[in-house]
């Protein structure tokens, strides 16, 4: 076991780690210590045990890594089996992270994958601090933003200078159909997820008046049932569960009825599922491409054998194979990773609190989902509105239609905003737009 890192079966890795080459990073020192570090010390966290996560565990374990954690809150579904290759039919209903970890530990001797069957938000700073590198294969932008915020919050600055030993690199992958992207984030040093929030396309939304009054597409009918008819009729006494076939059946039938009434064609069961669950097409081969590039980057970072991807790569393989690399730029005013005091500009101090919340959700560089706001008003911390806790929501709801002025806010007042997209609250200074 002690000499496993010098074993013949690792000779592929040893060639690139124990020999020097003209394209290595200048600080790379070839030796058997590199592989020893990968196998014994280097701790990697894989976030998401889905299409990318399964691939990542396999790739990392065959690139010499042995100390890995995997975190995922999901259970295995039949529709995962076309790409999440560590799962079998018998595993349906079991935890993704636990099943994936067991498979890898059984297949690769000496591998020590530790599963966490929970949300990333259930883990604290101490948990995340233990890792050397984090690799992320998520389909949720909110979760990506959250982990990005977490890694930035672990950075320590002394006299304004970043302590580089607190930087935990984040390697992030995403796929859609025959397309995908990979990025390497060095929190505090290179562009973080929030710096380039505009890279994510806005979600398709249909205007309420269209779905209610002038539907034209089958999607409009489905949205109507989802957004208006379901809450009204509440057929199963609960909110919609996209994985419950009864729920999908109900929505399919009601949407079909509506489509027929309006003479709209082309409504299919597959479309209903796609709209209700916001399904992104996914296929094994693309996951393999994207996850393997992510893992090569982890290998480069951990061994310093080669320079890293700088810092964003996109693959579009619908017409031939087309890869494009570019450097996403750090936003000096980034809400998450810059060291400046953040400001929010408003038209007037007499706007209502609900308008401020609307602004926090719609501003391109904020894109919050359910902001809760507290404020420092004459030395006292006052809760203005919190949506996520029902009892507080009820008590603070009346503030929504009050003006900021009436709530005691003035120019340069500081508000503290909490949101699902970030693990920490964000302090914003209120500024009035000059020309108004």
């Amino acid at each position: 076991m002690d000499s496993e890192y010098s074993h013949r079966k690792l000779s592929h890795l040893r060639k690139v780690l124990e020999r020097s080459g003209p394209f290595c990073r200048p600080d790379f020192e070839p030796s058997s210590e590199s592989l020893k570090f990968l196998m014994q010390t280097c701790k990697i966290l894989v976030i998401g045990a889905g299409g990318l996560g399964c691939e990542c565990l396999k790739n990392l374990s065959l690139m010499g890594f042995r100390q890995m954690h995997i975190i995922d809150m999901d259970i295995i579904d039949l529709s995962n089996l076309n790409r999440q290759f560590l799962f079998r039919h018998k595993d349906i209903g079991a935890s993704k992270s636990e099943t994936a970890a067991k498979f890898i530990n059984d297949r690769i001797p000496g591998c020590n994958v530790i599963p966490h069957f929970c949300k990333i938000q259930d883990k604290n700073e101490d948990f995340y601090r233990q890792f050397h590198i984090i690799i992320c294969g998520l389909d949720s932008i909110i979760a990506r933003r959250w982990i990005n915020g977490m890694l930035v919050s672990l950075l320590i600055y002394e006299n304004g200078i970043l302590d580089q030993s607190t930087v935990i690199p984040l390697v992030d992958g995403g796929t859609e159909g025959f397309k995908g992207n990979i990025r390497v984030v060095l929190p505090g040093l290179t562009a973080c997820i929030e710096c380039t929030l505009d890279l994510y396309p806005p979600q398709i939304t249909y205007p309420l008046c269209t779905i209610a009054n002038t539907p034209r597409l089958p999607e409009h009918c489905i949205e109507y049932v989802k957004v208006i008819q379901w809450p009204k009729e509440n057929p199963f006494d609960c909110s919609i569960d996209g994985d419950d076939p009864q729920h999908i059946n109900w929505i399919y039938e009601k949407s079909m009825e509506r489509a027929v009434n309006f003479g709209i064609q082309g409504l299919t069961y597959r479309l209903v599922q796609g709209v209700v669950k916001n399904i992104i097409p996914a296929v094994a081969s693309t996951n393999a491409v994207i996850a393997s590039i992510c893992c090569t980057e982890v290998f480069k970072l951990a061994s310093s054998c080669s320079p890293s991807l700088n810092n964003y790569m996109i693959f579009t393989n619908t017409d031939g194979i087309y890869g494009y690399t570019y450097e996403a730029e750090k936003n000096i005013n980034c809400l998450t990773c810059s060291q400046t005091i953040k400001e929010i500009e408003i038209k007037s101090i007499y706007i209502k609190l609900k308008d401020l919340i609307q602004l926090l959700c719609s501003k391109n560089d904020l894109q919050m989902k359910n902001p809760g706001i507290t404020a420092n008003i004459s030395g006292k911390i006052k809760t203005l509105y919190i949506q996520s806790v029902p009892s507080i929501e009820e008590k603070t709801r009346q503030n929504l239609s009050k003006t900021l002025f009436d709530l005691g806010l003035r120019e340069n007042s500081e508000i503290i905003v909490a949101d699902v997209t970030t693990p920490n609250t964000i302090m914003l200074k209120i500024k009035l737009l000059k020309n108004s």
Partner: protein
Amino acid sequence: MASPIPKSPEQSEKNRKYDRQLRLWNDHGQALLEGAHICLINANALGTEILKSLVLPGIGAFTIIDGNKVTEEDIGSNFFLDADSVGKSRAHVSTQFLLELNPDVRGDYIDEGPEQILNNSPDFFNNFNVVIACAILEKSLIILAKKLWELDIPLIVCKTIGFVGYIRVQVKEHTIIEMHPDNEIPDLRLNKPFELLKTYFDSIDLNNFDIRDHSHTPYVIILYKYLQQWLINYQDIPRTKIEKEQFKQMIIDGVRKDENGIPVDEENFKEAIKAVNICISHTSVSNSLKEVLNDNSCINLNSKSSSFWIIAKAIKDFMENEGDGLLPLKGALPDMIADTEKFISLQQVYHKQANTDIEAVWKRTLQLLRQLGKPSDSISEKDVKLFCRHASELCIQRGSSLANEYDAKLINTNEIAQSLENPESLMVYYVVLRGVEKFQAEYNAYPGEFDDHVEPDIVKLKACISKLLGEWGCAPLAKDDYVHEFCRFGGAELHSVSAMIGGLVAQETVKFITHQYKPINNTFIYDAVTCSGSTFIF
């Protein structure tokens, strides 16, 4: 709790399992995949990673050809082997592990190398849909490539050494029906409306509409109406930038005004203005489609012609007759601001004409089948419908022979010489990889494979490369860096590099089998150090 009437369609287990990919290539793509049989030569890490991404989506069957016994090194890089596999047949063990991924897939193996099979059973390869060769030696590769070229079976050759990956696709002729373009250009026929559409447009008078109807009129109708006005004064539709701006101004002027003479907010007019650049143009046939329609295989059908060419000919005949120079109508209307009634009735006009066109192409297809003495059920109406819907995307790719590429007199040396002048070009990796093949043929090992041979192998590999470049009439490599790098790699197969190339090869294989999406033409080289990839044509 209201219990709904059970009228939702029953979802088959298969449909549910493959849901995420059916949204890409649809049921007809899946059916082709499930009917396909592919052959993999050499189940190294790259080979099994390719098969993994084909077994998971449900390829019909695979056959592995591999005469090697599993080594310790194999286990360190290949996921579809385990610690107990050492010394066993690599073909056998990897077949078993791969079959565990999907019970719908059949798989078998032959534990012989391609050399023996090519010698002993030359017809072995005749019935595969795609053949994939990993880490194959130059000598066998050329024999295999010649054979598959004659058989018109796609061959994908691939390898990874260290951080470098290589894919070469050899296909004599590949036809594509669905390209899945990112931005589909709508087929609206505004400048040449068919009878039904013209009648419909003419039945509408925007001036008579109240403000509600006016602001809920689909932009297609708005564009048509203003185009008619335009054509009173002009010979042709607006073409230049200035003309288009003038045309847009006409539309802006058409927006209704309130009692104070201020234009009201009509979003459909805004959409119309935005749509001018895309929708106001002459309906034309793309060059790649012209290539298909004017191809000899299309013009001169024979008893061996595939469905693709027969339907393509039917479309060509349609265009030259009842189609009046135009393709069969797509029949799809993009979403636009409108009330339900106006949108649906317009949609139905397009839909109806599309069906009429399909019917005509279908009749012509049957006629061609009769002339060719083929059974009338050899092409279904559904196939014709798919072709008509995607007629503008039809495409043919003709590749080049690998055997010619390996002939110093026939290889495209211009491309090599020109690319080598650019220090950023990945062509240098192609040259070194070809040099490594020469080295292997001569010394029966990878350069740098053994720790104590690295230095002497640098000299030998350099000599192999110089010889090749000399044969091609190219100047020697400017730097030795790449030679050093490959001797450092020593033929190492890094799993994550093989997994990446494996995923790409699986994508290309799916493209060949489904006739959807466009495959590469014809060589792809990837450098994982710089994360850059390039396509070259040989």
